[in-house]
């Protein structure tokens, strides 16, 4: 039995129109296609500027496509309402970002527990789970009560990772999850990814860390092939 | 008889005031605006009450004027002599003999009858003014029966003093509809606002008249766990021995000796007679 298709991208294009610069249109992607099944991990590859991040952001609903279909867990992000996208992100579509965007004074533990609270989990249980994950990621407990805005890059990254793994999202997007981690924590993250695959999550990631990529990705998709030919302005 | 029109005010003015009084009686507790006239006495000396009295008086009336229950203060004496002069009406200090009683800050102890009119002098007619300075807003609140603010005032009292400390001008709900300010009568008098007599309230400076028709329900505002109490000083009148009347505390000598006596001088004298 084939696993269920969790992500289906077909003929997706993306342009950026820069109104401040006389309406210059910069095409970024054209004819992008991608299928990811449950339990699969797909790595996006390609040189810098080839559109990996753009595709990942399209999958997250962060960017609006110019054309095509982006189905995530059955919802077409190209046509979905904001509310549907929000709901998808709440319970189904997880995202480990490279950047930490949080309310400045909120403690790390609550930042991690936040997705669970949004899903209606009781506060104590949500914090317990968040704490367990932070412990697994070796974030010293004395930091849990502090705002991650004051953390180092590696510490912030682990908070982001914990946020992405605290709920068993069926679809998970990973943007450089191992970038600034030491070997020990890198191993922890790779194990988390393996566990997610094992429970049937569909994962799409950008990994500059080639050995990591080789270790966990089932397939690689080179986004360079979706680069549009230069369009006359 | 003087050269003044009967009871000082000209007839069209009296007509205007009577209209306001009738409207007030028709909508108990509602503050009716009226074109208050300049009177030959300063604001704060009862110009509202005097105009209402002037509009009510007939040559057959007998007038009594009290100030804090007393018939012989400057204010009471001068208003009484004013009407004796400009209306030529009989005056009295006996509650039972009066047909019109103008009062400042008290309801006479002697129970009133249905053939009597009690006229109150009112300094600030708007009970909501304490918390809401905008007249447009207080009018809207009355119109829409939004009286939550009145309880905020009582809440503040309890929060600050442990009990409702408002001891005079205690707000009440009239006829189940309008919250009103009974003028600065002691709250001891509040239960006595439900009366067979017609009660009229006049505020000269603020240009408002309002009224309580006989036997109108007057419900003093309170909380379930802090019910209204008609309190008075705990003591007996040093002159007549009454314990059921509203008492004034008086410093009797240079040693600071204090004693109580009835604030209603007529009632006290009658008991001693």
């Amino acid at each position: 039995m084939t696993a269920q298709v969790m992500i289906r991208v077909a003929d997706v294009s993306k342009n950026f129109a820069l109104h401040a610069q006389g309406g210059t249109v910069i095409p970024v992607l054209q004819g992008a296609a991608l299928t990811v099944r449950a339990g699969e991990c797909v790595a996006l590859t390609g040189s810098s500027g080839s559109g990996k991040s753009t595709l990942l952001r399209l999958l997250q609903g962060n960017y609006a496509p110019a054309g095509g279909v982006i189905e995530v867990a059955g919802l077409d992000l190209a046509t979905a309402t904001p509310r549907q996208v929000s709901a998808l992100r709440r319970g189904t579509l997880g995202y480990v970002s490279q950047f930490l965007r949080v309310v400045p004074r909120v403690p790390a533990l609550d930042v991690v527990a936040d997705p669970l609270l949004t899903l209606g989990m009781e506060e104590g249980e949500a914090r317990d789970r968040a704490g367990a994950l932070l412990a697994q990621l070796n974030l010293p407990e004395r930091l849990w009560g502090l705002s991650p805005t004051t953390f180092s890059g590696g510490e912030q990254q682990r908070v982001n990772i914990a946020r992405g793994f605290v709920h068993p999202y069926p679809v998970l997007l990973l943007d450089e999850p191992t970038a600034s981690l030491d070997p020990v924590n890198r191993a922890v993250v790779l194990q988390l990814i393996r566990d997610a695959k094992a429970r049937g999550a569909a994962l799409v990631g950008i990994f500059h860390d080639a050995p990591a990529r080789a270790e966990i990705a089932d397939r690689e998709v080179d986004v360079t092939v979706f680069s549009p030919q230069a369009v006359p302005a | 008889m003087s050269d003044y029109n009967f009871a000082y005010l000209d007839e069209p003015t009296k007509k205007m005031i009577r209209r306001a009084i009738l409207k007030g009686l028709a909508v108990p507790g509602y503050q009716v605006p009226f074109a208050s006239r300049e009177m030959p006495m300063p604001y704060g000396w009862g110009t509202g009450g005097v105009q209402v009295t002037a509009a009510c008086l007939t040559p057959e009336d007998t007038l009594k004027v009290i100030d804090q229950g007393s018939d012989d203060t400057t204010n009471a004496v001068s208003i009484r002599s004013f009407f004796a002069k400009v209306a030529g009406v009989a005056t009295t200090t006996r509650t039972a003999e009066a047909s019109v009683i103008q009062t400042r800050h008290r309801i006479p102890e002697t129970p009133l009858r249905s053939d009597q009119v009690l006229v109150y002098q009112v300094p600030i007619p708007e009970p909501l003014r304490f918390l809401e300075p905008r007249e447009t807003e207080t009018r809207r609140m009355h119109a829409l029966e939004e009286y939550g603010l009145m309880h905020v005032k009582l809440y503040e009292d309890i929060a600050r003093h442990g009990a409702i400390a408002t001891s005079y001008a205690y707000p009440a709900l009239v006829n189940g509809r309008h919250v009103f300010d009974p003028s600065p009568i002691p709250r001891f008098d509040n239960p006595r606002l439900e009366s067979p007599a017609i009660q009229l309230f006049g505020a000269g400076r603020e240009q408002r008249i309002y009224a309580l028709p006989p036997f109108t329900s007057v419900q003093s505002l309170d909380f379930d766990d802090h019910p209204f109490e008609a309190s008075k000083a705990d003591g007996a009148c040093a002159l007549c021995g009454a314990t059921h009347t509203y008492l004034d505390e008086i410093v009797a000598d240079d040693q600071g000796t204090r004693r109580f006596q009835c604030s209603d001088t007529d009632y006290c004298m009658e008991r001693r007679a």
Partner: protein
Amino acid sequence: MNVVNTALVLEDTPLLSVSGLTRSYGARIGCKDVVFDLYPGEVMGIVGESGSGKSTLLSCLAGHLETDAGQVVYQGQDVLTLPEPARRRLMRTDWAFVHQHARDGLRMNVSAGGNVGERLMAGGARHYGNIRKTAEDWLERVEIDPGRIDDRPSAFSGGMQQRLQIARGLVTGPKLVLMDEPTGGLDVSVQARLLDLLRGLVRRMGLSVVIVTHDIGVVRLLADRLMVMRHGQVVEQGLTDRVLDDPQHAYTQLLVNSVLPT
């Protein structure tokens, strides 16, 4: 074969449905033809520079300003055509308004407890002890020491006053909260605390919120959806992060790019 995605089974009746909302000041447009739906539990941000019509829109929604045309349908009823008593009752029970300046939303000569209790008393609460207990509970929820229940707001800091204003509005458990620049004029650290508090309250009470601000950072952290206004009209709306990260309209691009990096 399809996974049942419970999170996607959404309540499909909007709490608030605004259409054709228009208000002019003489020849000048305040806001024009504004259309949006707000669903239970949703937070919608409205951004735009001064004079863009965002405050006019909010004032029209709240009934502080008369509307020239349009509908504001709340739970099946156009609040613009409601008789005034019903509209005002709605405003002090099911709706709440948070002013930019706390002193516009508070009674400065009334204690904190009295401020919080007012809506309860307006709704008929007549038990002093219960009112006080509820007020204490709410002070705690907005992180004000309940021991200060008898202090007047004038003795509070700006951030505390703003939190008190929020408690005063939320005490009746409203469904819809309209906020006008709630973090404006506060220190950055105080802003953060307020934002965190608001996020928690929105989540726990399932509040729907319309928040007007010129602070892009505030909407990014608080709003699910974003509406960008200019010259009284909505130029772009959608998912907050999509509007901010992938703005389509020239004006939105300008607005987003004008934000100083933090």
